[in-house]
């Protein structure tokens, strides 16, 4: 039964041209950056900067629009003898999976084609994995927002605000706090705060691949221990999964209790 929900929704999403635009965008972006920079490492760094901003934006806006567009469809489904949870889970996995899959494919091809060294392959894999996880995180946030807020315009507005918060405002506040509290030792917090923002988490994990020398500066030992080892990297990715899981559970709870 849930298989039927999956198949139909996946077919529906894969027939939408937007997912291919999504994949094509990252493929073209990667290739363009490679042509402009001329090196795999240069391409990856530039790509990281764009991925960290654009991917959450696409995921959160597309997710919110999808949920609102599917509202009457959810109503039809909920009037059938199926569990609400099955409707929600299949819907999330289809949307998140399609976006993540298209990103992996779109970004993965130029990254794989132009990887020159083992280090390139490793950092490309990190870039793909972190981007896919960020997609899942922000799709879950989008679902929570769009299910929780009934008005479509408000929901999309709230989604954009959240994107703005995670992408810019949060870091701005942190930067301000570093300044305002520069008399206090901020190092312990510097690391903790990255865990409170999925974009920062992904950014630091990736920055460890590209700007490791700089990060080894002040908070070097802490960072090396945390992100330089397989275990720390696993912790970062686990935290990202948690960041997807919590809004997912909130959204699921809202979905199973909502009125159509």
């Amino acid at each position, binding site marked *: *039964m849930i298989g*039927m*929900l999956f*198949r*139909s*929704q996946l*077919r*529906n*999403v894969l*027939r*939408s041209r937007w997912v291919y635009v999504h994949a094509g965008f990252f493929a073209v972006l990667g290739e363009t950056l490679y042509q402009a920079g001329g090196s795999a490492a240069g391409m990856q760094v530039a790509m990281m900067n764009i991925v960290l901003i654009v991917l959450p934006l696409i995921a959160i806006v597309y997710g919110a629009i999808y949920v609102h567009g*599917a*509202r*009457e*469809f959810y*109503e*039809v*489904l*909920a*009037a*059938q*003898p*199926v*569990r*609400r949870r099955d409707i929600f889970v299949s819907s999330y996995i289809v949307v998140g999976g399609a976006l993540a899959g298209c990103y992996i494919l779109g970004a993965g091809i130029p990254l794989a084609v132009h990887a020159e060294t083992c280090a390139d392959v490793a950092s490309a894999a990190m870039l793909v994995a972190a981007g896919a996880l960020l997609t899942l995180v922000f799709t879950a946030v989008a679902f929570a927002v769009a299910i929780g807020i009934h008005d479509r315009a408000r929901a999309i507005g709230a989604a954009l605000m959240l994107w703005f918060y995670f992408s810019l405002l949060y870091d701005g506040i942190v930067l301000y706090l570093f300044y305002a509290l520069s008399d206090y030792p901020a190092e312990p917090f510097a690391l903790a705060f990255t865990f409170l923002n999925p974009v920062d988490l992904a950014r630091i994990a990736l920055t460890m691949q590209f700007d490791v020398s700089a990060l080894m500066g002040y908070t070097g030992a802490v960072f090396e221990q945390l992100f330089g080892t397989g275990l720390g990297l696993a912790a970062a990715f686990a935290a990202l999964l948690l960041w997807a899981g919590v809004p997912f559970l909130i959204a699921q709870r809202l979905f199973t*209790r909502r*009125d*159509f």
Partner: protein
Amino acid sequence: MITLDAITKSYGKFRALDGVSIAFPQGGTTALLGPNGAGKTTALKIMLGLARPDTGTVCWDGHRVNGAHAFRNGIGYMPQIGRFPENLTVAEFLTMIEGLRAAPAARLDAMLERFELSSQSSKRLKDLSGGTRQRVCAVMALMFDVPVYILDEPTSGLDPMMSRRLKDAVRAEKEAGKTVVFTSHIMSDIEELADHVVFLLEGRAVFDGPIEALAGGAGVERAIAALLEARAT
């Protein structure tokens, strides 16, 4: 027998249903009427479990159904607005709905034929007009041979011929002893189909009885006007 017992439902400050109790007789056809915002659709959704009442209970044959889902195997539901996953074809959509149910859609082909959708079944849903979508909704409800049909404004948006075919189909179910609950604004439809009427006004059932009692032989429209007037004074 479906019963709503002391159902209250608010959306924010707006009280959609205010202590409504209705018993829908088995094998009867009940029309829910009332002006816009009176709570007709809310009542249907609460029966289906699409919305949760703030207080009160919904019983199907004496069993409470809050939170359950299997009982919907016995219902054919036609929503007011038919919006579907736009990139699926009519056939794919109906097959999906069929796949979610315990029993197969025995009357799928007959209903496609009746609503003249056979030739459109490979079209994408986004390419259909509003009226055609409404026909897909009708098929979705009537393709199952089930004891209960719940139809929300079934004839709105249908052309006269399709409207006629829908009513014929409903009448056939009625004659087969099925329970039908529908909402409508169209008085002729109500007079034609309903044998029982519930009139909702501002979230309350101000009338609940056989259609003959409401009309008093003078027509439903006049009876409703009288009810509204009595309310205003």
